[in-house]
């Protein structure tokens, strides 16, 4: 019973395989829910971990996201921006509620520091001399709003319509926000590589 540990779950973003699993999930099929959890976990965890103070808090947020998805799946339709956008919309609200229930808002500087430190340890920073390190550092300089739109587009793989649905904005506004965020990212990246 259940998917063996370590067995990756890969299926095309919104293809027929995902649709089949979601159809089973609507009927509360436990195996379907396990597949969806395993499929979405890495990306949701990364999204939550960039915004919450610990691995445990991120795991709590992802668990809560999946449980709310189970509650709400009867109202999900494919007429929106797709399943991933719907799921990220739930995750986003869970993370925001965690901030509010903690009684504090995370200041931009704290988020930036966490983002730049989280992905690499000191040894990684010493030995890795590729552009990824500089890009991550430049990314950490962006505002939370810029970070979110880029993360949902490139890491979560959502379309502009998907980001719009997840964040409650218009698709056109998302595209414009993405363009500006990339412009600012490019500016920060140039500063980082110059050593400013």
């Amino acid at each position, binding site marked *: 019973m259940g998917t063996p540990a370590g067995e990756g779950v890969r299926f095309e973003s919104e293809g027929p395989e995902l649709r089949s699993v979601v159809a089973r999930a609507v*009927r509360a099929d436990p195996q379907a829910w396990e597949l969806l959890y395993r499929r979405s976990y890495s990306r949701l965890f990364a999204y939550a971990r960039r915004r919450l103070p610990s691995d445990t808090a991120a795991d709590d947020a992802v668990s809560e996201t*999946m449980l709310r998805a189970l509650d709400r799946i009867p109202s999900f339709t494919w007429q929106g921006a797709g399943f991933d956008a719907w799921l990220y919309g739930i995750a986003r609200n869970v993370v925001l509620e965690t901030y509010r229930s903690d009684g504090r808002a995370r200041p931009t500087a704290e988020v930036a520091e966490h983002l730049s430190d989280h992905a690499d340890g000191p040894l990684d920073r010493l030995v890795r001399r590729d552009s990824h390190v500089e890009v991550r550092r430049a990314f950490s300089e962006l505002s939370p709003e810029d970070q979110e739109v880029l993360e949902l587009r*490139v890491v979560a793989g959502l379309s502009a319509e998907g980001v719009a649905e997840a964040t409650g904005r218009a698709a056109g506004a998302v595209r414009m926000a993405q363009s500006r965020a990339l412009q600012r990212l490019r500016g920060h990246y140039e500063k980082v590589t110059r050593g400013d």
Partner: protein
Amino acid sequence: MATDDELMAVLATALHGDDREPPADRVASLRAAATARTVSPPTVATFPSPRTSGARRLAMVAAAVAAAVVALVAGAAAFDRDEPSEADLLAGGVLEFETRLEAPEDAATAIATATGIRTGIGRIVQVRTDDLAILPAGEFYEVWFVGPGDTPEAPNRISAGTFHPDEDGRSAIDLTAAVDPARYPRLSVTAEPGDGEPRATGTEVLAADIEVLGG
């Protein structure tokens, strides 16, 4: 980095963390929560508020499911203690009818078998099929004995019971019915919405005429 697409591609690689597996206990709790929905729809008392933290909420749901299972098993054991078993009834019964149910012409192909065993308490109707879809939580299939002249406006049918397929899509159910198949000579299976309406309001998915053996 020349273009936005190239920058996005590098960013995607830079931000993509290691592939991770979710904690096994969290997966198990989500599965338990899903299973609980196939048993019965959620109630306020059963499922904690979304405001409860994720780990605690999953743990509370899993505990509620476990408690419900224990109660069901205890109740079933108490019920069976002083009553003849179904096996005893079947062993002492007489084959009354056997029929093959099929889907209406314009519906997806599905078949089932139904066997009626007359016993001292009526008859046990055994329905077997692997062809029925798993319905959304709260909905169910219902077996009817249908009499002459039955219409939605003027129903002439008696329910023999309700069921839903197991998680593998198999239905192997035994229903007890005191209905005389000679007076209600047609079996029908409908997919009901679970809205509390006792009349048949759902779609017929399987049906067959009953020919009582031995006249």
